[in-house]
């Protein structure tokens, strides 16, 4: 009985030590290596990017009013648009910085268990941060370097900076809330360009998800995203 309790206690201590310290050490090593190679990785991805395009946004047909003459020309808003897509699962995608909670992490493509052990991961079925639509990035809260440990300390108005191959994108937090792990609606399309961070909630539990949603306020595609937002369009209506 006594030895059983001692063994059980040692097992629990070993478990906590592994989860809270060993996984941090493993993550630190991966992050250090990824950070050292980040500039070279981004330069390589930049070379493979398509040329910046001037994109147009479809406007609804103007309805002629009987009292006014029908316009002879229609002005179509135009803005530079630089497309970018994520690489294969586990490849470096960019750098995620949240100054308010001192987060500075290399971000990877994909959200598999193995990828999230390396750092925050980008959901592959959502646009890359800085692209029109709703880019979703997930990260650990209490293990593997705990990049999103203090995510609940953020407030609306705080900035999130993301550096990808096409440049730096600055987002401003609009909403912070808690949902169930199955509430996939938080990953759905949004008008303009958004970044959604997801993490486990509360600390030391995967029962819920903490969601931080931020809107693009500066970056290579900001003007284009604004045009889309004005039209209530996200990624699906790009022309």
């Amino acid at each position: 009985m006594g030895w059983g309790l001692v063994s059980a206690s040692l097992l629990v201590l070993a478990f906590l030590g592994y989860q809270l310290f060993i996984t941090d050490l493993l993550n630190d090593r991966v992050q250090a290596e990824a950070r050292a190679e980040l500039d070279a990785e981004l330069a390589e991805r930049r070379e493979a990017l398509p040329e910046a395009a001037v994109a147009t946004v479809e406007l609804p047909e103007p309805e002629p009013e009987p009292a006014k003459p029908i316009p002879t020309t229609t002005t179509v808003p135009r803005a530079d648009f630089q497309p970018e897509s994520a690489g294969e699962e586990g490849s470096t995608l960019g750098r995620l910085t949240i100054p308010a909670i001192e987060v500075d992490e290399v971000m990877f493509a994909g959200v598999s268990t193995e990828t999230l052990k390396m750092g925050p991961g980008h959901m592959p079925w959502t646009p890359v941060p800085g692209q029109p639509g709703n880019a979703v990035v997930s990260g650990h809260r209490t293990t593997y370097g705990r990049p999103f440990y203090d995510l609940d300390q953020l407030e609306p108005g705080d900035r999130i900076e993301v550096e990808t191959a096409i440049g730096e994108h600055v987002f401003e937090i609009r909403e912070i809330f808690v949902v169930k792990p199955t509430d996939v609606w938080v990953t759905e399309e949004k008008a303009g360009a958004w970044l959604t961070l997801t993490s486990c909630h509360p600390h030391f539990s995967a029962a819920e998800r903490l969601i931080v949603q931020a809107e693009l306020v500066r970056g290579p595609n900001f003007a284009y995203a604004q045009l889309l937002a004005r039209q209530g369009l996200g990624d699906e209506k790009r022309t």
Partner: protein
Amino acid sequence: MRWLWSRLPGPAPAKVLQMLLIVVVGLVALFFLFEWAGGLLDSGGVISG
């Protein structure tokens, strides 16, 4: 440990090998157990239907 050692068959070198095997298998099992239980603490925050 002494209890386990006395029950292992064969001469001392064979017992050492068997003990090593048991320890390695035990550590691997422990690793998978910790990984599984770690997912209950923090799954990475992914949203999925």
